[in-house]
């Protein structure tokens, strides 16, 4: 596999999607809004209630941190869908497939194009979130809550896995539809289980501690491997040209 070819494809896709306002806004606005919103919520909730109890505050912060698994699961959708279904719509896959590059190189290029902006946006949002939360909670807690092991696990393990899952789902949905928006919507069903986990944490069914996060990461890794097989099997040039809708 020639990684240079994948990189060329990824850079081309990123160059195109940067010019697409709808795609760009999902990548930039979602993490930015949530990373600013959460510290503001803590600050105003504290002021209104005369101070959030410490134990509840910590549960709340862990729940908010979980959003940095949900955000990377959502961001790659529009990019991955545009990157694959967009090529189908523009009929540019045939000239691309006739170049001396392998199916794996194309798929990797598409994955890099969706992965890089998603991870950069997630990390940038997380940095703003952590600084903001520490600024509004240090007085109450007496120490800097972030960074901690949980957010480290989320950012270094769960967020990349969530991005990979999202990309794989989008490759699979892209092979079945002819419309960028539909592919993106189908691919974004991935965020539903993550919302479920968030709600379970909120109502106290599970605690999003290090052990739970590691178990979730193991399940996600297994899913990533399983979906990798499906998406690579679907992303074959002959299938793309003759069987994809």
């Amino acid at each position, binding site marked *: 596999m020639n990684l*240079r*070819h994948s990189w*060329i*494809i990824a850079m*081309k896709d990123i*160059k*195109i999607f940067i*010019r*697409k306002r709808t795609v760009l806004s999902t990548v930039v606005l979602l993490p930015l809004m949530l990373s600013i919103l959460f510290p503001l919520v803590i600050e105003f909730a504290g002021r209104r209630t005369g101070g959030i109890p410490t134990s509840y505050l910590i549960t709340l912060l862990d729940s908010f941190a979980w959003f940095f698994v949900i955000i990377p699961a959502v961001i790659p959708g529009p990019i991955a869908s545009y990157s694959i279904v967009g090529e189908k719509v*523009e*009929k*540019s*896959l*045939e*000239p*691309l*497939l*006739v*170049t*001396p*590059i*392998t199916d794996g190189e194309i798929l990797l290029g598409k994955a890099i194009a969706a992965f890089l902006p998603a991870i950069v946006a997630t990390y940038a949002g997380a940095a703003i979130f952590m600084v903001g939360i520490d600024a509004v909670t240090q007085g109450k807690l007496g120490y800097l809550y972030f960074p901690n092991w949980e957010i480290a696990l989320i950012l270094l393990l769960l967020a990349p896995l969530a991005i990979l899952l999202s990309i794989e789902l989008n490759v699979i949905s892209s092979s079945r539809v002819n419309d960028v928006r539909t592919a993106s919507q189908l691919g974004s069903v991935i965020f539903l289980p993550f919302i479920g986990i968030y709600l379970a944490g909120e109502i106290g069914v599970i605690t999003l501690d290090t052990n739970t996060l590691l178990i979730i990461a193991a399940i996600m890794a297994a899913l990533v491997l399983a979906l990798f097989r499906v998406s690579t099997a679907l992303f074959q*040039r*002959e299938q793309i*040209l*003759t069987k994809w809708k």
Partner: protein
Amino acid sequence: MAVDGLTLEVSDGEVFGFLGPNGAGKTTTVRMLCCLISKTSGTANIAGYEVGNDADSLRIRKIIGLVPDNVGLYEGLTAYDNLDFYAKLYDRTEGQRKESIASLLKMLELWEKKDVMVATFSKGMKQKLAIARALVHDPQILFMDEPTANLDPEAAKTVRDFILELKKQKRTIFLNTHNLEEAQRICDRIAILNTKLRAMGSPEELERSVRGRVTVIQLEQTSDVILNAVKKLRLGDVSLDGNKLTISTADPEKENATILDAIFRAGGRVQSVNVVGSTLEDAYLKLVRERGAQ
């Protein structure tokens, strides 16, 4: 089955035309030769490499260029960026890329538009850019699938002229078309395909392959003696309409001299001689209809 029983050989530097109606298997054949889809049986070789062999497929794709029936350009990129992207995929150095892109865009009169988004291009400009894309790595063999379809006459002429320019450069071109005039003007040899190969040869050979050419001779005056003299030659059907004598001929270039000699010997005087021949269109229609009747 899209294509069946197809045997052909295209020489280096030849412009080979593939004629056939919609659904004849032209695009399928090109896709098979470009290693985009697999053949169910049979063999094909391009420049000594075997189509269908994984390692050879990559080698084949390095030495071919494809102008597909849909231009498939990146509308969100400029003309230059479209070509640069493809040139990079063929591992061209920066110097090679700059040189070939500039040369192609200038030749195709798109240099002034190099930094303009492709989305704003006309159909003709997009088609020219698709041709430039197929040539950006200087391929030995160029496959073109209906390169002038859906273009206005002016844009179609520009594209045709450019293909003729490529022909002068002795580039091997495999041209899918259903434009007979285009095939006749550009191609050294033509194959007529309708799922199966119906005929193959130079445009002239294909024209000659269809019977039905007639020699029309305008006489000053007719007589039974002249008519009988021509009939005695037993070349084909002879008919007379006023002073116009019409004779079916298989090979008028050879037989007309004999006919005229017979008329002169019978005392006839000739005002004009015309060969009303079958055209490539006649040949094409006959061969395609034969297939339909089978």
